[in-house]
């Protein structure tokens, strides 16, 4: 179990989603973050490779395709990007 941290952009994106009340998407994002927190070395947390140690977890609901991009900084998994999936 790893404590994960958020860069500024993903923190703001999450905060904005909370304000707009998109619970379905928030739940899906939280589920992805749980996966990352539980096992950052696992395949589920590394569904996409962006090189340079950066990994992606696609987050999908019926209406949204989002992406969590994260990488390790030391031992800490840091979420670098949270937003629309540019590959969807």
């Amino acid at each position, binding site marked *: 179990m790893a*404590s*994960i*941290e*958020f*860069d*500024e*952009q*993903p*923190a703001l994106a*999450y*905060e904005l989603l*909370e304000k707009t009340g998109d*619970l*379905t998407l*928030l*739940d*899906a994002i*939280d*589920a992805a*973050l*749980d996966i990352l*927190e539980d096992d950052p070395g696992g*395949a*589920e947390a590394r*569904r*996409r*490779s*962006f*090189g*340079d140690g*950066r990994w*992606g977890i*696609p987050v*999908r*609901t*019926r209406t949204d395709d989002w992406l969590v*991009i994260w990488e390790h*900084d030391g031992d800490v998994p*840091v*979420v*670098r*990007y949270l*937003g629309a999936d*540019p*590959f969807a």
Partner: protein
Amino acid sequence: MSRGCGIRTHGDACTPQRFSRWSSTPPLRDECPAQPGYATAAASPPSLSCHSCATSGVRGADPFSGAVLYNSYDTVYPKAMSDATAEMPISEAREHLAEVVGRARYAGGETILTHYGSPAAVVISFEEYQRLKGSEPLRLPPEVEAIIEEGRHHPERRKPRPRRESRSQG
């Protein structure tokens, strides 16, 4: 009689308890009158039918596996089934292609398509395909690269993972 959808999950026996746990998800409402343990759907597409009784509009579990099938991926496909391997005859897959693709895309499931009972092909998500192929890393768009670089240069702005007081699921 029902043709069923043909999906079976390897090494995973169907149990009514298992299905009834899943059937408590919102889209599933009443128990199928002809097949206890199978639930009718709130808004099933008309083309869907119960695996056992062919009652139109019934969403249910495969009699061999307990696998919950069909759409409304975010609610019907449970996490517990996300890594399951299932199989389906190609003839059935023609009629359920959207569901098979949805299962791969949204639930991370693998569906083996069989031809006269022999494995012929597998439907998996693009991400899984990419992983198996050992493909080159994806190139992020410049705007996303810029966001990542900005974060890397300002570790002092980092915050712990935000926690919601209440989550509507999980």
